[in-house]
Structure formats: structure tokens, C-alpha cells
């Protein structure tokens, strides 16, 4: 089974059980390499359906302060592409089976060279790619190469994206469509945008059956409750990092947060 199949299966399973897939983001190398590997393994254990692994980049212009600080620290820890791929390989060796997608910016990929980067990523056990500074017009080379090697391509759409364009973006997805919930950057928010549900419904209609996972700002059980019946997947990043920081990266606290969010999905077995 390649990455595309693995990601597809997550959404099929979610659809069958009528609940959204829970997707978590963690930057590799934060607060340090070993702890980040342990945290990802714990998240998998606690019931995450898919994990996005952040490959840090020095100039993350789609990210808010929480992820900026975390990835900056990872870079200060000396974490670069090979360490991230090594972390993936180690997670696989530890028996972590859920799909792992890399989330990074285009420059670290280009610096390695697209074919070599993808080959090494697939080899290490990566299943998919999310690259927020690669819009439709610039993505084709990487998307086609990812497709050829069996890695899921996860494009992004935003509230400013017109329906017709969103449909074209969704058509390039081999994993799912990452719907940015707000006109803005990553970061936990107290409240979801007022037109969030409408935005999500419109996007799902335009996406023509491609699974739509929504992210940016999702941080509380009530957000999960509100969006659960509308989305194919929910993506939680900054809020998870903040929970980690507040608890000294305590295993129980992070797993507990995952469970609380899972239990917030209506109809989920408690």
C-alpha cells in the first residue's frame, strides 16, 4: 500500500463510521528531536487518524507565532531534512502505522531536488505532502512527481478561493483538500469564523467528492463539535503545541487532549 492509498483509507474509514478524521500537526525537532518522536508516537496511540509532521523552515510565512517559535527552536536544535526523515523511519520502526504527511515550504524540497527529496521521503515512510507556499499554478511539477512515487498530494484552498478555482485545486488532490478556515495564518483561536460552516459547505460542494479537512484555528472541543458533521477531517496544530508547552510536553496531557477532542465528536463511543 502506498501513501496515496493509506491516506485514502483514512477518509474512507471516517466516512463509513460517519465521523471526521482527526489530524494533528507536530513540528519535528520541537522541543527536541527525541521528545518530538515520542510525542508523535503518543498521538498515534491516543487515536489520531493522520499526523502532519512539520519539517521546519526558516521563513514560515503562512504560520502564526506558535508554530513560528516551535519550528525556529527545531532549527536552533540543528534539525534539518535528514533528521526529519530519520524521525519518520524511526517512528515506522517503532510500529507507528498511521499515515504521516510532511508539511513544509517549497525551498527545503527544492534544495534537495524534487526527485531525490520525494524518493528519500517515501523510503523513510512518508505518505503525503503539504506545501503551503505552492499554489495551483506552481505545484504541478511536485504534484506529478509525488503522484508517480505514490505520495499523497494535499493542496490548500482558502476562504478567498472562488468556487471554480477550488474545484480545480481539489481535482489535483490525491489525498484530501486542506481547507484553510480563516483568511489568515495558523494559530489557535477562541472562536471559529462566523461564516465557517458556510465556507466549509461551499468548499465541499465545489470539491466534488474529494475529502475536505479543515484547519487553522481549530483548538477546542466545541470547535470539533461544531464542525464534526460538516467536515471529512479536522486539523489541529497550534492548539496542540500550546497544550504541549503548558504541560511540559507531558504524555498524559497530550494524549488526554486528543481523547477530549475525539470524544467531542457527536456519537463517538466514550
Amino acid at each position, binding site marked *: 500500500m502506498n501513501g496515496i492509498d493509506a491516506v485514502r483509507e483514512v477518509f474512507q474509514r471516517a466516512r463509513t463510521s460517519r465521523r471526521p478524521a482527526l489530524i494533528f500537526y507536530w513540528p519535528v525537532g520541537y522541543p527536541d528531536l527525541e521528545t518530538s518522536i515520542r510525542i508523535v508516537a503518543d498521538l498515534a496511540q491516543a487515536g489520531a487518524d493522520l499526523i502532519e509532521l512539520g519539517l521546519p523552515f526558516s521563513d514560515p510565512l503562512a504560520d502564526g507565532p506558535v508554530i513560528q517559535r516551535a519550528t525556529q527552536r527545531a532549527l536552533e536544535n540543528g534539525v534539518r531534512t535528514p533528521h526529519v526523515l530519520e524521525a519518520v523511519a524511526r517512528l515506522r520502526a517503532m510500529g507507528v502505522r498511521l499515515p504521516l504527511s510532511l508539511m513544509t515550504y517549497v525551498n*527545503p524540497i527544492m*534544495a534537495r531536488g524534487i526527485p531525490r527529496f520525494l524518493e528519500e521521503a517515501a523510503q523513510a515512510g512518508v505518505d503525503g505532502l503539504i506545501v503551503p507556499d505552492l499554489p495551483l499554478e506552481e505545484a504541478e511539477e511536485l504534484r506529478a512527481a509525488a503522484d508517480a512515487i505514490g505520495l499523497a498530494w494535499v493542496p490548500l484552498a482558502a476562504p478567498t478561493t472562488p468556487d471554480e478555482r477550488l474545484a480545480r485545486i481539489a481535482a489535483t488532490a490525491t489525498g484530501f483538500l486542506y481547507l484553510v478556515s480563516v*483568511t489568515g495564518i495558523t494559530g489557535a483561536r477562541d472562536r471559529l469564523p462566523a461564516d465557517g460552516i458556510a465556507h466549509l459547505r461551499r468548499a465541499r460542494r465545489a470539491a466534488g467528492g474529494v475529502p475536505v479537512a479543515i484547519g487553522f484555528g481549530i483548538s477546542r472541543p466545541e470547535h470539533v463539535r461544531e464542525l464534526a458533521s460538516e467536515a471529512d477531517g479536522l486539523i489541529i496544530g497550534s492548539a496542540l503545541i500550546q497544550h504541549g508547552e503548558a504541560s511540559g510536553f507531558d504524555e498524559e496531557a497530550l494524549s488526554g487532549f486528543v481523547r477530549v477532542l475525539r470524544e467531542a465528536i457527536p456519537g463517538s463511543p466514550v
Partner: protein
Amino acid sequence: MIRLISPPIQERPGYFGPYGGRYVPETLIPALEELEAAFHEAVNDPGFLREFEDLLRTYVGRPTPLTEARRLSEAVGARIFLKREDLAHTGAHKINNALGQALLAKRLGKRRVVAETGAGQHGVATATACALLGLECVIYMGTVDMARQRPNVFRMRLLGAEVRPVDAGSQTLKDAINEAIRDWVTNVRTTHYLLGSALGPHPYPLIVRTFQSVIGVEARAQMLERFGRLPDVAVACVGGGSNAIGLFAAFLEDPVELVGVEAGGEGISSGRHATRFADGDRGRVGVLHGTRTYVLQDPWGQILDTHSISAGLDYPAVGPEHAWLRDRNRVRYTAVTDVEALAAFQALARLEGILPALESAHAVAEAMRLAPARPGAWILVNLSGRGDKDLETVAKAMGEGKTSL
């Protein structure tokens, strides 16, 4: 009516050869498309061009003079001419683009403007244009740059702009651009991002080139009118590359040698510099701030910190058109160190009574270096800004013994 150099026809829209493009979050794509359409409409609209020209003439003080630097010429054995952008209102060429884009913002119905600044010249120019046109203005500036360009911070605040310190990363221009883009991503519906250099996502490199081409158009006409000939060489400093492309754009079809000068900092071997082209090891093709170009980076694609005594050149990427001009050998790019720039700064002050911006002093230094090899050559230098903002930096450098009076 005002003459500008029309944007070049691009084989692949948004690209100069393999450089350029639009590598930004999806959120911004519709705004960039809207900006592109408005820009092309505007530069074909006589009403817009008249308004722009009127501001350049009656507010900026254009055309700026062409000054023959007689004593400097004599000292180095060439004929050196200075295009005096330092005499433009606010003291640098940045005002040309700031006014052009502020007019575009109004055309787009956007009442709020954000911008980045390094040396503070673009921030001051943007704050000025916004004050003039009644637009809300927020300027992002690295805290290191705020410390070394204090007078400009105060000027921006006096002009009614809000200056937001950027504490991330190297706390210089690169980080200010990150933060300005993040603001734009968040407020894109109401806000225009007034990018100050010939870089960033398409259509910015074309917009900035077009509005700055007034420099080259004027300089070329002034040379022909006064001397009946073109210069042999035209020299400009290159940070992002807006003053350079503004000068070069008018001479690309002429038999004029074009030279771009990067910031050599403490020397290429020191690693403390901002030469994207001259450091073949670390200056490699990549993507920064929405454009594919030469970028100073580590082997894994992490952007490197740069150093230059001049804040305006202290940036790890270069405008995509410069990358293309370099590949085609139309422009030769070279580097001048901090020490050489300081020497040129003092030479121009003593021999011509002009304090250049440290950025522009890099171009002057290159002209002084070129002259002995080309006795009698006519060299046109873009004096892109004035040096008042740099007095503290220069005083400190001189005190540190890098150079002395």
C-alpha cells in the same frame, strides 16, 4: 506625458526565464490576480499616468538632476555622472514606487497599506505616500534595523504610520517582509501590500520595475540632451534590486555596460555578506518571499542570515529579473565590501559635497574601482539615496577603526 518603460512581454507570464513566479499561500492568489489586472489597466490609462506624473513633478521634484562629479572624476580618471535620486522627496528613489502603488491601492478601493522596510527609506516613502493620499499605513521593521536607522523610525511615526517592530529571525528586512506578508494574508480584503523592491510574487517585480523605470528614462534623456551620447557604463547597487532595475530598464537595448553591485559585507570568505551571485556555494536558486531566484541558503534550504553595513542591501534574495539578466550576461554583478563602501561614502562627501546613502555608496565604490581600468570612460552611477540616515552607522564604523578621516 510621463514615459515609463513598459513591462516586458514574458514568455511564461510572471516569469523572467526560469525565475519569478508566485510562490505564496493560496489565500493571496485572488488578490495578486486583481492587482495584476489593475496594474495593467492603470499603466494603459492616460488619467492614471497623468496623476502619477503630476505627483512626481510637483511633489517628488522630478526630474531629479544629473550631476557630473567633476572632482571625483578627476581623482579616479574617468567621467562620473550621478543620477540624483537622493534629491527626490524623502531622500531616495523609493518614493517613485511608493506613490505609484499607493495610487494603485486607491484604484483597488483599499484604504489600508502595509509595507516592510530595511533601511527605512521604503517605509518613509510609503508613510509619505499614505499621508498624502489619506491611507492608513502600517510598516514592519526588524528590531536590528530600527536600532541602526532610528531617525527613519521617528520620521515614519511623524508621518502618521504605525511602525511595528519585528523580533523574529535575524530581525532585519527578511523578517519584516515575512511579517508584512502575514499581515496581508490576514487582511487581504481591505489591505494593499506595498512591496518596496523588485521582488516578491508576480506581479510585484513588474510593478516596481515599471514605476522605477522613470529613473532610467530620465537619466538616458539627460545624457543625450546634455552630451549627445550615452554613458559607457551604468552602475547601481542591488539589494532586492529596485533602483538598479529602474536604471537598467532604460538601457537594456543600448550598447551600455550594466553593472549591479551587491553588498560584500566583511568579504565573501567571511560568510558575513549579502552577495547572492558572487557566493556560488551558498547563493543557489530557491524560493523566498514568493519568488524563485538566487537565495543565500544552507545545504538543506534554510535561508541564511546576511550582513551588510547598509540595511537596504542586507537581504538574502535578489529580484528575479536580475537573476535572468545575470544568466544572460546582460548585467555584470559584482560586490563591494563594507570598508570599500565607507571609503566611497567619505570620498563623495569630501570631493563632491554629497553624503550618499550607504547603499548608494556601494555603487560609487564600484565606479571608483572601475575607473582606473577604463581611463576616460563615461560612468553613470545611480545615487539612489542620501546618507543622513546613515550618519550614526558611519560614525560608529569610523570609531571602530574600519576607516578614518
